[in-house]
């Protein structure tokens, strides 16, 4: 079976749902991994692994969306809810810039009290004061929130952000792009189309973005395949996705915790990465999330079709709220990539080479 799939890939044919289902459920893990690595090295023959120096601050934890998997948010008005001013956020951007970051991935809760101008100012002021920083701001559901509070459409909101200087969007908030799963874990976020619409409209305008997947909770194999199909189909339209980034659900302090029998571990992670590499034939990069899966799993992943190590994440609060903490320095990233047998290459948000270490 793995040989059939290999032949199909070498013939330039696309994997279908049956192939995907077999890979996710039945394929021997190392056969799958070896094929993913073969495909990765044929598309990206340099034995290099990229990474970005970035920070991941938040501007608010106030949120009306009540996702079952989230330990970070507080309802607006809750004593622990907080929202930063534009200047407070810019202080965080400045702190990241001082540490050498080229990307700031800014995201936050869905706070209906913030006007569109707040978001636009964040982008404009970041571009103006820190030209070396790419504002990698606002996931799809935040864009939807802006559309709602402003009364403008998603497209018009994206136009405003583009005018302010934004060129990329982070891919968070996709969860699993399956109506059934999103209804179950993030009902107020809307169905898959709520996420897809934003990325489609963004790519149409020339934005680049990433696609994520949060697995390991209530999803089934067919939900995962729906997700991969949705990403692949959208990518066929504009080619705007730079990378695919899966990570496993972290149950600490969440409502979803009690519904998850076994947390997805490293083998499930390696399998998903390898399947992503094979199934998403039009997405250039597959990213290992050392942050959520651990540095060891991250290093092993470099042999399972992955070519990107993600970022330094100088500041991160969302996983921290689920009692999950991990830190790394640039020196450590470089050492980890090297000792795994690859050349470390620092990149920008959009995968241009900054420096070969």
């Amino acid at each position, binding site marked *: 079976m793995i040989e059939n799939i290999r032949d199909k890939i070498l013939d330039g044919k696309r994997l279908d749902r049956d192939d995907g289902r077999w890979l996710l459920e039945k394929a021997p893990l190392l056969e799958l991994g070896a094929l993913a690595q073969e495909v990765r090295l044929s598309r990206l023959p340099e034995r290099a692994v990229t990474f970005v120096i970035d920070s991941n601050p938040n501007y608010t934890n106030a949120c009306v969306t009540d996702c079952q998997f989230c330990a970070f948010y507080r309802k607006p008005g809750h004593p622990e809810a907080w929202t930063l001013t534009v200047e407070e956020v810019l202080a965080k951007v400045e702190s990241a810039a001082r540490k050498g970051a080229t990307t700031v991935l800014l995201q936050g809760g869905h706070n209906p009290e913030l006007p569109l101008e707040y978001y636009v100012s964040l982008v404009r002021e970041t571009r103006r004061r820190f030209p070396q920083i790419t504002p990698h701001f606002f996931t799809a559901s935040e864009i939807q929130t802006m559309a709602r509070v402003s009364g403008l459409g998603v497209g018009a909101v994206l136009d405003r952000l583009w005018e302010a200087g934004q060129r990329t969007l982070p891919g968070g908030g996709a969860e699993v792009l399956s109506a059934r799963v999103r209804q179950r874990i993030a009902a107020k976020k809307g169905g898959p189309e709520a996420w897809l619409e934003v990325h489609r409209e963004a790519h149409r305008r020339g934005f680049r973005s990433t696609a994520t997947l949060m697995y390991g909770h209530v999803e089934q194999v067919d939900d995962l395949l729906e997700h991969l199909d949705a990403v692949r189909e959208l990518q066929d339209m504009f080619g705007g996705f730079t990378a695919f980034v899966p990570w496993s659900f972290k149950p600490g302090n969440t409502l979803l915790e009690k519904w998850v029998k076994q947390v997805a571990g490293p*083998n499930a992670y390696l399998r998903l990465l390898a399947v992503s590499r094979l199934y998403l034939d039009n997405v250039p990069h597959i990213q290992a999330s050392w942050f959520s899966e651990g540095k060891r799993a991250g290093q*092993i992943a470099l042999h399972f079709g992955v070519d990107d190590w993600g970022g330094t994440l100088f500041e991160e609060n969302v996983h921290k709220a689920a009692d999950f903490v991990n830190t790394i320095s640039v020196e450590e990233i470089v050492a980890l990539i090297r000792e795994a047998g690859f050349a470390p290459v620092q990149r920008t948000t959009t995968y241009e080479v900054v420096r070969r270490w």
Partner: protein
Amino acid sequence: MRFADHRLARVWDKVRAGERLSREDGLTLFETEDLLGVGRMADHAKSEREGDRVYFVINRYISPTNVCVLSCAFCGFARREGEAGAFEHSIEDIVGMVREEVREVHIVGGHHPDWPFEYYERVLAALHAARPDVQIKAFTAAEIDWFCRRWKLEPVEVLTRLKAAGLQTMPGGGAEIFSARLAKLLRYTGKANADRWCEIHGIAHSLGIRTNATMLYGHVETLAERVDHLLRLRAQQDASGGFLTFIALPYQVGATRLVPRPTPPADNLRTIAAARLLLDNFPHVEAYWVLLGEETASVALHFGADDVNGTLEDERVQHMAGAETPAGLAREQLFRIIRDAGKVPVERDALYNVVRVWQCEVSAGAARAER
């Protein structure tokens, strides 16, 4: 099977035919960039023997003392008598450490300068009397050698007397790396050398005492030294046949810092896989989660390992040397390691008798069942 490195095809032909691998094959396994190629062959060899089974044991580690006359350069455990952090447990302490559900005790300690051999006999006898159901795995060949040298005894007498006191199996520690060069460099010449270590295991086997074997790697050894170590174990197993399990021990950087960073997980996976392929006469190869970490141990179950050791309620030796994993994992955590790999947890005793096959509900897929 298709390989990124064509040299592995030749090795694979031998593995499939059940032929023994050569030293050159062993070097290829350690040198190739095709990590998953090595892993797939080892997975095949493991699956042929054990299918999807992965063993674990409810056990307890006990160190009677960390007082030691040696000063091995890789060791963060040993203390001099009276030094801060030195400990010496009484027999009552030791017996009291074995909780109700423990099935195996693993006893390893320093080379104490003064404790008479009879003390060790009394420790085992007291444990055996208090908990006759608990299997006693005690004393590395290095410790046996120390008892012999310190108290002018022969190994056969030491082992016969310990067996009479309740010893059932022996752990595989103290082998380090069989290399005169490294013994000198890392100051373990005062410890049983390769010949002596193998001799003692051979005698144990002849007395019906099953034993384990280890290799301490990931410091300053060469890949050839690893291969030679494994081949020496294979030759000893041919001669005496009593080894149960091979355990690869990655060096813990901790405070001794022979190298700046621990060897990476890919090297740990590769070493386990190479051991499975080279040690064709060893029944079992272990992924020792305490040293590997849970993630690597779990992935290693696809790289030829069929055992994760046990619950290990106390593991002072490695823990003091800086092992990151908190000592003591509940059975549930071992299940997590085994089931994430899509394998079936099999609870065993010290001799690999099956105590219970635990039902596996989790598929190999990434998805987790909705309740």
